[in-house]
Every structure is written in C-alpha cells, then in structure tokens.
C-alpha cells in the first residue's frame, strides 16, 4: 500500500471534522473492502479516519419495533444482538464472510460501499430502513444509487441504521462459489402494510426491489403467489459465475424459498 496517515477520533463530530480537513481523506469502517484495496494499491487516500473508536456509533438497540444499529457495529455483534428481535437480519449478518470478516466489517461500511453483491443492502432496502448520517436521515429507497454508489456526500458518515422489524422475514443467499458474496440474494419482509422484496447480487444497477413480486405477495403471502412471475434477464449482471438468465432465474427461486421460510 501507499503511505497514509491515520486518525482515530472518538466522536462523530471529530470524525466529520477529520474528514472535512482533507480532500483525500477517507473513512475507514472495518476495512474489509478498503484494506485489501489499499494493499493492491488501487486506492491512495492521504488519510484514513477510523470510525471504530467512536462509541456513539457502536451497538444495537430495539425500541418500538425498530432495530437501531450503530454504523460502526460489526456484523458479528449484529448477528448476536438481533437474534431475538430480528432473526432474519441476524441470520444475514451471521452469514457474511467468515468470522474474521464478521468481527471487523461493519454495517455502516457495507452500506456506504454498496457492493452490488453485498448482503446488507438487501436487508436495508427490504426493511424500509432509515440510513442515519451525521447530517440527515435518508430512506433506504432513496439511498442506493447504483454499483458502489450511494447518495452520501463527500465526508458524510453512516452513523446509524434503523430497521423496522417486519412481521415475517427471510433472506436467501445463493453464494458465488469463490468469494461467497451473494451471486443472488433475496430479502423478503412482510409488514402490516405490505411486502417488500429486495434483491442483491443480480442487477447491473445494484440492489433493487422486485415490485411485481411485492404486489403479488402483498395480496397473498405464499410462494404460490409468485407462480408465473419472473425477472427479465436484461439488466442482470453476467460473469464467469453466472449468466444474466441464470441470475434472473435464481431471483425467482430464492424469492419463493424466502417466502416459504418466512411464512
């Protein structure tokens, strides 16, 4: 990697100030994407502002049917803390990467990076989460903006994620054999006012909601309700691990399985 400075602030305000002081500074969550990128010399920030020392960004609380997770909370902590309150989310968090990744990687880092094959974006979008930053609150529906892109401004930090807990939910992840990221991942969340279905890993535009499935499932929350529905292969990603058609097919299979598991 190239040389860089490191700062480790202890408050959100100091972290924001540290990022603002340097155009080339970059926030560091758990570093599970950023550190390998640096090691390959594919990025050259002048300064890393580590968020792991910010106490107010750590931890999980549940209140009024909403799970609130500090942006710097590692996946492993989420998996343990929401096991009772939001089991589908706990299962998702507990199946990201391996134990080393789960002990370092954070929800804020994952959502800020918005890898098109990451798991958390599907949970946030299907849950209708609110992404809280140092300056504002952003609805998940407005937050994701394509591959590795969000509406976050320069220097803006994901400080908290609030996820309304559905009546029923399930996440089905079909792994890419090498990376074990999601080749396709589908998160189904049933709320009193309707069903939300979010798909990761598949689309050229990143995580998205499958609205036809949502409509069908809102009327009839059963796997049979999805019969005859399919996602067009156009717009899906293709690589050595799966064609567009295969990814589109998997969306249907996994959505049915998620509904069957949640119902």
């Amino acid at each position: 990697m190239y040389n860089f400075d490191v700062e480790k602030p202890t408050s959100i305000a100091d972290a924001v100030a540290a990022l603002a002081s340097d155009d080339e500074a970059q926030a560091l969550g758990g570093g599970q994407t950023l550190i390998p990128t640096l090691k390959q010399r594919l990025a050259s920030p002048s300064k890393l502002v580590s968020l792991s020392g910010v106490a107010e960004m750590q931890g999980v609380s549940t209140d009024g049917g909403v799970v609130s997770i500090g942006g710097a909370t590692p996946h492993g902590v989420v998996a343990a803390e929401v096991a009772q309150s939001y089991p589908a989310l706990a299962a998702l968090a507990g199946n990201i990467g391996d134990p080393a990744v789960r002990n370092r990687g954070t929800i804020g880092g994952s959502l800020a990076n918005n890898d098109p094959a990451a798991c958390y974006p599907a949970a946030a979008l299907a849950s209708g989460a609110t992404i809280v930053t140092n300056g504002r609150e952003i609805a998940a529906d407005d937050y994701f903006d394509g591959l590795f892109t969000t509406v976050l401004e320069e220097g803006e930090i994901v400080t908290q994620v609030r996820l309304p807990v559905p009546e029923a939910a399930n996440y089905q992840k079909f792994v890419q054999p090498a990376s074990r990221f999601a080749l396709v991942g589908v998160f189904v969340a049933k709320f009193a006012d309707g069903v939300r279905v979010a798909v990761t890993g598949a689309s050229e535009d990143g995580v998205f909601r499958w609205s036809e499935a949502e409509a069908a499932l809102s009327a009839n929350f059963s796997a049979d309700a999805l019969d005859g529905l399919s996602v067009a292969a156009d717009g899906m990603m293709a690589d050595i691990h799966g064609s567009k058609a295969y990814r589109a097919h998997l969306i249907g299979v996994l959505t049915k399985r998620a509904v069957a598991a949640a119902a």
Partner: protein
Amino acid sequence: MPKDTGIGASPKRREDVRFLTGTGNYTDDINLNGQAYVHFLRSDMAHARINSIDTAAASAMPGVVRIFTGADFEGVGGIPCGWQITDKHGEAMQEPAHPVLAQGKARYVGDAIAAVVADTAEQARDAAEAIELDMEELPAVIDMKAAVQEGATKVHDDLTSNLCYDWGFVEENKPAVEEAFANAAHVTTLELVNNRLVANPMEPRVAVGDFNRATGDSTLYTTSQNPHVIRLLMGAFVLGIPEHKLRVIAPDVGGGFGTKIFHYAEEAFCTFAAKALNRAVKWTSSRSEAFISDAHGRDHVSTIQLALDADNNFTALRTDTYANMGAYLSTFAPSVPTWLHGTLMAGNYKTPLIYVNVKAVFTNTVPVDAYRGAGRPEATYQLERVIDKAARELGVDPVALRRQNFITEFPYATPVAVEYDTGDYNATMDKLEEIADISGFAARRAASEAKGKVRGLGVNCYIEACGIAPSNLVGQLGARAGLYESATVRVNATGGLVVMTGSHSHGQGHETSFPQVIAEMIGIDESMVEIVHGDTANTPMGMGTYGSRSLAVGGSAMVRATEKIIAKAKKIAAHILEASDADIELKDGQFSVAGTDKSLAWGDVTLAAYVPHNYPLEDIEPGLEETAFYDPANFTYPSGAYACEVELDPETGKVSIERFAAADDFGNVVNPMIVEGQVHGGIGQGIGQALLEAAVYNDEGQLLSASYMDYAMPRADDLPFYQVDHSCQTPCTHNPLGVKGCGEAGAIGSPPAVVNAVVDALQSMGKDITHVDMPLSPARVWSAMHE
C-alpha cells in the same frame, strides 16, 4: 492389531510440531544481512512489443539499488526445458528461448519485463510504478485450436507456428486402430475439457539469492520440491555456475503440488543479481503474483473415442488432445501431455489397440506444467468418462462394463509402452462396492427425491504410473535428466542415525515415515533416526519429490544404504563376537551369533565403528556411513476404484457431494495415517477441479479468475467425510519396500467420479445430457439443464 512402531504404524507426524506451532523455517523466514528486495514489473498485456523501457526516473527514487531489464540478460542463458519430445514425424519439438526477463516482447499477463532491486520491498514496488514503458499491444493468442490455424498470430516470431509438437503414440498402431474402429459394433465419442487450474500452495514462492565475494560461492534459498534439479538447471543452463560453487537450499516448503518442481526465472534473477550487486536479493511472491507467475496445470481439450465389439469388449481407443503449453516451455511441460498421459490411456482395461495424438500449443498465457497427477488425471478423466458414456449408450451397468474389460493377469504389457507389474482391479472394485454401500444407493436416491433433490452415483477406476522412473527409459523418452534417487545414511557413534535424502518433503511427512522404515530394518526406536533434506550441500544428488516417487524411489535408496550399513555393522559385530559374518543376526537392535547366547547391542557396534580399538581395520574402514543411489526398474502402478454420490438441486443446479469412497491399492503402506491424509488431500483437490476451480482467460488474455474472489478453492464445507480404504495391497514387485506411491491418487481418481455422478443425476431426471465440462458450477449445471 495395528502396529505402534515401524512399517505399518501410524505415529503422529513429527514435523507437524513445528508446522502447527509457527516454528517452521520457510524461505520467507530467511533474512540475510544487508539483503535487498526485488519487485518484478510484470506485463499487464498478454502480447505486446516492448518498444522502450525508461528507467531513469525510477532509478532515482529512494532506496533503489538497480533496475534490471531484458538487456541485462543478453548473453546469459535462458530458462531451460527439461524434456524434449520427438513428434510423430521424428522431428524435435519447437523450443522457444525463455529469457529471465522479457526481451523484445511480453508474451503473457505476468511476464516479467523489469526487476527493481531496492533497500525495501515497498521502495522496489514504488519505483516499479515509475518505470515508463512504451509497449505496443499485439493480438493475443488464447484459444488453442485458433492458435494452430494457418495465419494465426505467433507467440514466438522465430518459430514456424504455435505448434510445439504433434505427437502420435504409438504411431505404428494407428492403421490397426483405425481398422478396429471401422469394424466396431459400437463407437462412443466424447469431447471434453480438462480445466486449467492454479496450484495454490499455501506458501507462495520465495527466492533469496546470496553471493560470497570472498569465496565466489552463490547460494539460492528457494521454495522448491527439488533443490538439486534447480542447482543443475540454473547453474548449467542459465547462469554458468559450476555445481560446486552453487548451493541451493529449499527449507520448509508449504506445499508444492507440482508447481514448485520447476526452475523459475525469479530464482535465476535473485542468484544473478546477488552476484551483480554483491548483496543478497530477496523476492517474495504475493498471492496475486502467484496467480500469474506460478505454472498452471491441466488445460487439455480432448476428443476421445472408444470402440466396442458386439459383446461390449473394448476393441480400440483413440484420443486427440490439444494441450496448452502457455507462452514458454516450463521445466517438464512437454512430458505431461505425452509420457505422463499417453502411456496411461490403457487405464485398468485390456483394450488391445490404442492411439493417442497430442498437439501441444503455445498461447499467450501463463506456462502450464505438472500439477498433482500431471497427465495421469487428464488420461483417467477422458477414459473413465468415455466408458461411462458408453455404458449409458449401451444400457449396461457402468461397473459391470468396467469389470468385463479389466486386466486380470499380471504382468501386463499395455499397447502404450508400459508394463503393469501387479494389480487386482476386481479386488479394489469389490472393496469399493462394500465401503461405498453401492447396494444402498437406490434407497438414498429415493430419500433425496423425497426432499426435492436428485441423487446421482458415479463410479470409476484409475491407474497411475508413479515412482518416476527408470532413467534409461525416460532418457529414451526425451528426459534430459536421470530420475534415480539417493540417500546417505550416517550412523553416529552412539547409535543414532541421520539420513540425508535427495527427496524433498513439502507436506508429505517424510520426516516421520522414512524413519519408520529404517527403525524397522534395524529394530530400534524411530526417534533415533533423523531425516535431512532440502540442501544440496548436505544431501547427495537427488531428483526431488514429485510423481509420488519419494518412498518408492527415495525410500528404496534409503533401504539400500541401510542394507549396506547393516552388512558392515554385522562385520564389526562378528569381529567383536569372534564369529563369522554369516552367523550374525540383527533383531530388535541386537546382534547375536546364531545358535549361541552371544550378543551385542546396536550401540556397542556403532561405538566400535568410531572407536575402533577392537576392530577389523585390515578388512574394513572405521566409521559407519553409506550412500546408495537407486534407479527403479519400472514405474509403480497404484490403482483403485472411486465412488461419488451427489445431490443436485434441480432448481439451482447446485451440486453437493454427499458421499465419497476410495478403495486404493498402494501396495505396501508404511504409515497408514499419512497415506489416508494424502488421499484426503488429493480427493479435495480433485473435487475442487470437478466442482469449483477454473483459471479462466478472456479473449484478450486477461486472467479473469486471478484472485480468490473469482478462483474458487474448495473449503471444508464443500467436501464430505470420505470412506477411504487401502487394504487391497498388491505389492510392487521391483522395489525393496513393495510400495507404489499415494500422493496423487486422490486427485487422479476423483474428478471422473464426480462428473459421472452428476451426469447420472441429470439423466435420472430424464435430461438428455451426456456431459458437462468441469467445473460443474451451479450455473453450468443449470445451463446444461436448460439448453
């Protein structure tokens, strides 16, 4: 009762104490006083003309010692190839020059263009980025069949084409084979790809070159499976250093799997630069670099045809293979698709007529060479897949078809130039049917169906030629080296032994199993025997470890040397006991005179050898140290039968291995635990090839699977618990231990079992699918189901 010591016992691996507690001494642990570090600037284009390399700015950067380019190696030798193939017209193969650093052109992504030596590794890497390259990209040749078309872009301008050789084996058999096909009652044809693999040993390659200005001696520390061969090739062909002025040390090596057999340019560079700079030079490969600089494995495209008569007897076999050599010839690359592949095409079957054609092709890809099994997996895969397809076409049981055609009488001379000494293929198949519980398959299939899954069963056999190899034979076949092995057994005065072996252990457990043999021969405790390997200064000339040869060849040399030791020790004992040599018996570490109660302990005799006060000095020299070289009379022929059961998810195409059984005949077994471990590891790699692993290039010659994000290595949860058995033992008839070798069997025998099982599952769904190319990823299986 299992033994607790000696041959047949399973003592825990003594080397694991240091491997598992972080106290091993790997090449990267070696740091020499004042050493500099080299970073190789590698081509990011598959084929490009190097117009100019401007190192001026880079040379001025902090810490830079010197920047080398191809120009620095003009007049220096190139990386040699250790095997010359003669083609079907009697012509020698085309053999391109292989410079240490690229000269004129870069020929694959990863080809080293410049080498920056600096005080630190980071400084070297920084400076490499500052080198200004003027490169003109040329069309890349990636597809083998396109590469040999008329007018194809040439990888090497000075060769006549991209065809390295067109090999026919046995050429004289060809008309008879064609006639047999013309007369066949049934012909089964199968086209298949043996996927390109990256070996991925846990330890990436490292080289440290050192030069002593006072003595003029060069030393290379390297991650090698065969330090003597590196010394010979690098000294004689590249750098012109006589062997007595060059020492090669391969200390603890963290896995090889073939890719650490070969002499690499980085080794020659570090040795060369250390002398040029009068300073030690170290290179440590990153994992990313390993993907584009370690020799790859496999990469064959084949068409195989099997002819049968009306009674389902195999009457003839022919195969046409395109074998990828990559951009340059790696050390043993030409031998892999020919003598390690063509000679095994008979398999376990008495097919009377066989013709093998292999076209070896240059492409703009990483060089391809031996990887666990080396040629034998490619032969086995073709043969066992085409037999399976034939059985399905004929509507007969695949196991019964195999049994019907088994070789049952030994020795057996195949039509492809080798003679199997022993084997009992029905016995291993019987054992397989038992341990795999083949008779219970139907019930398990029903249980899978009940949960919406489709179950398939695949069975196959394999045979391999190990214990490589008789030197006179391989010399006739084009090897430029002998393939004997050596051992020096040094007995110390107080009775302990040090065995200096030319074999090299990089995970095989020699330090544990070799002492078991010697301890048994003498009747002493294994802890009294120490193994020394991996240093050309301390061990006799050896050819290294690969081809499952170390116990069969290196162990035999050790036995021969120990026999000399025992013979001499008996002479000493006879003198002291005042008896005749012929009356001395050695048992449980005691020398005794037959028919008397006179005896001497092992330690009394060894002490006498070094304190020769009462000693037959007029007849024998003091001391107790003997060397033996062993050159085998034949290959060894391990064989076996494997079975795999898969469960297929029809909705996603995902295959999971539910059961895997292996019945192997390795002849005699020294350490059953180590043997089982070798089989487990081999099957793991075979399942990796069958389901997961693929080195994939795009049309521009970029390696798409160049990291673990895209190259799928098998993980523990991809693999089942194995049922393995090696109780069927037909000992090798021509080495003193009766051993055959076990290191590669799992990787050879398992891929066809997996693919046969998946095809069985697909056909049981009513799908007209006769083949799916490896790796059988979910996407590929699903695509096959929906084509």
